[in-house]
């Protein structure tokens, strides 16, 4: 009997999660006795994800690895899953502590917050105004990064002035409108930071259309394959991301080890994640996978072929 692991994503179709699924399949092959169910809603809402989880519980999967649309709303249903003996971990976008056995952060939250600011600051030696274009106002991970960025701003980047944070809801039309609004309201804007793969593309397209290449730098978190074009045309100098393939790989690896009782999730434990290495759980049973990786003109070509 194989171990059934469900990889539940925020929404289907997103290139980031498709890449994570690649990693998951890789881990499954490596582990040998694993079946992957790659699933999720098409609209990134908590309610839709709950229905998905309910059907997974009914299918008696062995483990659920979820990237959650809402840190709190999924807790009850995931608790129910654990009561029925299912291993639950969250990855990428976490759920509150009671709702999972462990959480795998793609990277350290503080580090991501610092990175997104640094990406902008690196190209603004004189300092200046920057704005953040985020995903939905309820996205757990984005909010955490933005908080971290705001905290670090005054001490490490005193010349950078964060003038606004707006939300494009991971909807390209809304992100476009919001990015346009930013350009209009802040004529001196030097950079738009979009820590979301949808928002960053929209912002770069707006900057390209408005002929502001060279004046406004777009940066944030982007998938190289989707974003190469904007590094090439100069609307962006550099973006960052972690490897989604590794993330999916690690999530499945952890879920498997917990499900077969090979490991136990408790604070301080060090767990193996196969070829990616090892992680150590903190007080809230979360771990960070790896530091974010930066893409610019020098390496985007290569990575855009991978994910």
């Amino acid at each position: 009997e194989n171990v059934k692991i469900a990889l539940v994503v925020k929404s289907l179709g997103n290139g980031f999660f498709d890449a994570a699924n690649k990693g998951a399949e890789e881990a499954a092959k490596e582990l040998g006795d694993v079946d992957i169910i790659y699933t999720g809603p098409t609209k990134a809402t908590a309610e839709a994800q709950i229905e998905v989880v309910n059907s997974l519980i009914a299918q008696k999967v062995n483990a659920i690895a979820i990237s959650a649309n809402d840190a709190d709303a999924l807790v009850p249903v995931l608790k129910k899953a654990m009561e029925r003996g299912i291993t639950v971990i969250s990855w990428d976008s976490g759920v509150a502590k009671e709702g999972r056995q462990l959480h795998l952060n793609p990277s350290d939250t503080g580090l991501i917050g610092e990175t997104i600011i640094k990406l902008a600051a690196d190209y603004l030696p004189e300092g200046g105004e920057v704005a953040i274009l985020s995903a939905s106002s309820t996205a757990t991970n984005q909010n955490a990064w933005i908080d971290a960025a705001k905290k670090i701003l005054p001490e490490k980047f005193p010349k950078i002035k964060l003038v606004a944070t707006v939300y494009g809801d991971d909807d390209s039309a809304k992100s476009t409108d919001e990015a346009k609004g930013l350009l209009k309201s802040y004529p001196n804007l030097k950079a738009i930071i979009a820590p979301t793969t949808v928002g960053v593309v929209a912002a770069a397209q707006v900057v390209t259309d408005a002929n502001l290449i060279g004046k406004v730098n777009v940066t944030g978190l982007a998938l190289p394959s989707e974003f190469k074009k904007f590094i090439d045309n100069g609307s962006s100098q550099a973006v960052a991301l972690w490897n989604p393939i590794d993330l999916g790989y690690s999530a499945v690896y952890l879920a498997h080890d917990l499900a077969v009782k090979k490991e136990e999730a408790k604070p301080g434990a060090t767990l193996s994640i196969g070829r990616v290495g090892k992680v150590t759980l903190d007080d809230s049973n979360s771990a960070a996978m790896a530091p974010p990786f930066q893409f610019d003109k020098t390496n985007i070509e290569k990575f855009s072929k991978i994910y």
Partner: protein
Amino acid sequence: MKAFLKYREIWLAAAIIVLIGLISTRFPGFAEPGNLAQVFNDTSILMILALGQMVVILTRSIDLSMASNLCFTGMVVAMLNAAHPAIPIPLLIVIALAVGLVLGAINGLLVWRLNIPSIVVTLGTLTIYRGATFVLSGGAWVNADKMSPEFIGFQRAALLGIPVLSWIAILVIALFFVLMTRTALGRSIYAIGVNPTASVYAGIDVGRTKFIVFCISGMIGGLSGYLWISRYVIASVEVANGYELNIIAACVIGGISIAGGIGSVGGAVLGALFLGIISNALPVINISPFWQMAISGSAIILAVVLNARGERQKGRIILRKAEAA
């Protein structure tokens, strides 16, 4: 009726000017011609969609599937472009119109042949068309990277200093103006809305006219599909999700009566502009984006209240002295 309608449109136009004035007090650049032209361009797709919805609403029907049609057709042209970048854009537009037409015709046939209320038919196809997009694309998105430069550039090219997208909107507005005021089809559309029974007696084929109307809204949905995708450079299942309500809201604000028979091209255009200006202005005048929804909701309610005031019939006046007064 003419004078009355004009009055309504003038009133709406005045509201828009006041709105622009108000915004300018907080953000002086807003009323500059260049910016206004940009607002027009930003609102073009909504205007086009509102016109397509208008002809449907005039016949006492409704098309809830327009946004899903847009999503599906957009995905079709995006995938085509990704697979065969050599297909010229005009041909792609024709394909978009044709795909939209087919989707609209499906709605129209169900309404015409089976006599199912349009709200039910399009409530069904609203989910079916969007679902079909998922099946078609396998859930994958088509990103900017996969689209050809012509695909993205076409609507952004400037003609006489104005982007092609704006020209397309102007052309569509002109076509609808002729359709509604100068053709027998246009008159039939109004007549059906005013009194469907009488239309049957007057020799109008009500079912067939409704079919045509859905074909029109379908084609509009298809055209907008290309425009939308090449504007926002991403094709996914979530494109324009929930946008059907914005389209209807634009019509309602534009004074198009949901009960059919009342409304004009000018009204639909102004209604769309009104919404476009609000969504354009909020970010610039620094109102928290969280206010946007409540503001546009209030605007809709206000518009309905005012329109109802205008529509309220004066009634016959029997008393001589009351008539004189």
